[in-house]
């Protein structure tokens, strides 16, 4: 009787240790570097919008901005710089070719829109071109309005300054999708 109880207890202890190991591995996957990239890029964009609103308010105050406020603004700018450097390191480690073609911020933004680097690598280049323009794409499909030519990709300087933006966006999207595929599948 006692023996059976002892063996049962041992089984439970083994099961507990096994379950703890399994959940820790799952947690590692959930907080992987892909997720870090996504959260860092969102944090940077949030910091940017906060800094601009604060800056506008301080301009209204004019000369009567105290030292406290100026220190606050400086601290926020420092924090943005540090976060940006960390993001750059991560991007260069995980997807160097993507960062070369698209830049740090746009690359991280694309990853966060797609969900992960794997999902971005599996996409066709036409889908990369229209990432972030889902609303106008579905409006086009439903009502027959004008088709969108580019999504989030228009933040890139080459697309911004181009004469024919649609053409430039198509070329850049194909380059980006090639680069991500090399990053993910090749070494």
């Amino acid at each position, binding site marked *: 009787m006692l023996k059976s109880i002892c063996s049962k207890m041992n089984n439970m202890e083994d*099961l507990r240790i096994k379950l*703890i190991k399994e959940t*820790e591995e799952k947690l590692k996957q*959930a907080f992987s570097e892909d997720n870090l990239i996504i959260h860092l890029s969102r944090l940077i964009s949030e910091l940017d919008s906060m800094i601009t609103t604060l800056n506008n308010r301080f301009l209204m105050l004019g000369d009567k901005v105290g030292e406290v406020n100026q220190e606050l603004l400086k601290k926020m700018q420092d924090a943005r710089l540090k976060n940006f450097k960390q993001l750059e390191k991560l991007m260069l480690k995980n997807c160097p070719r993507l960062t070369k073609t698209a830049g740090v911020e746009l690359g991280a933004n694309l990853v966060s829109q797609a969900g992960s680097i794997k999902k971005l690598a599996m996409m066709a280049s036409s889908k990369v071109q229209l990432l972030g323009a889902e609303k106008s794409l579905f409006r086009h499909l439903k009502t027959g309005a004008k088709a969108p030519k580019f999504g989030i990709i228009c933040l890139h300087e080459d697309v911004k300054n181009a004469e024919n933006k649609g053409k430039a966006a198509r070329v850049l999207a194909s380059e980006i999708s090639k680069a991500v595929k090399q990053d993910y599948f090749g070494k």
Partner: protein
Amino acid sequence: MTSKLKALIDKGYKINLNKGDVVLYLGASHGVTAKIVSEMVGDEGFVYCLEVAPTVMKELVKVCKANKNMAPMLYDANKPETYAKYIDKVDFIYQDLAQRNQINIFLKNAKRFLKEKGRFILIVKASSIDAVKPKKELIKELNLPGYDYEIIDMEKTHKKHYAIIGRKK
């Protein structure tokens, strides 16, 4: 804001948790109430703590490492077939989810894991099932076939919450 189980105990309701019970806890979150359950069960008992969200799971793993009769499980309570390999039969089910189909989730889990004459506690959040309907009508529609149970109003301590205490027939 105190734990819902502790509020029930303070009011004087009989909870039927004995020493040595094996408990399935659905929706453990940070593990505050789960620790109370594990203390009530004692060293011979065991508590399976289920949770879906990985951000909350970090805290729960710490609690489970400190107590020798708790095990964390990162699974969705909607799909009992995914974690059925770890659990045999349980004496008690405690459920604290704020989901729309939480009664359905409980019925699935109880059919699979609960022993005959096993006990259970459900915490039902009326506003997450339907935000517009008055809660008294919601409670009238609620029925669990094959179970003996009573419904308790928890309005004083937790707003729009109900507790269901019962056992399998």
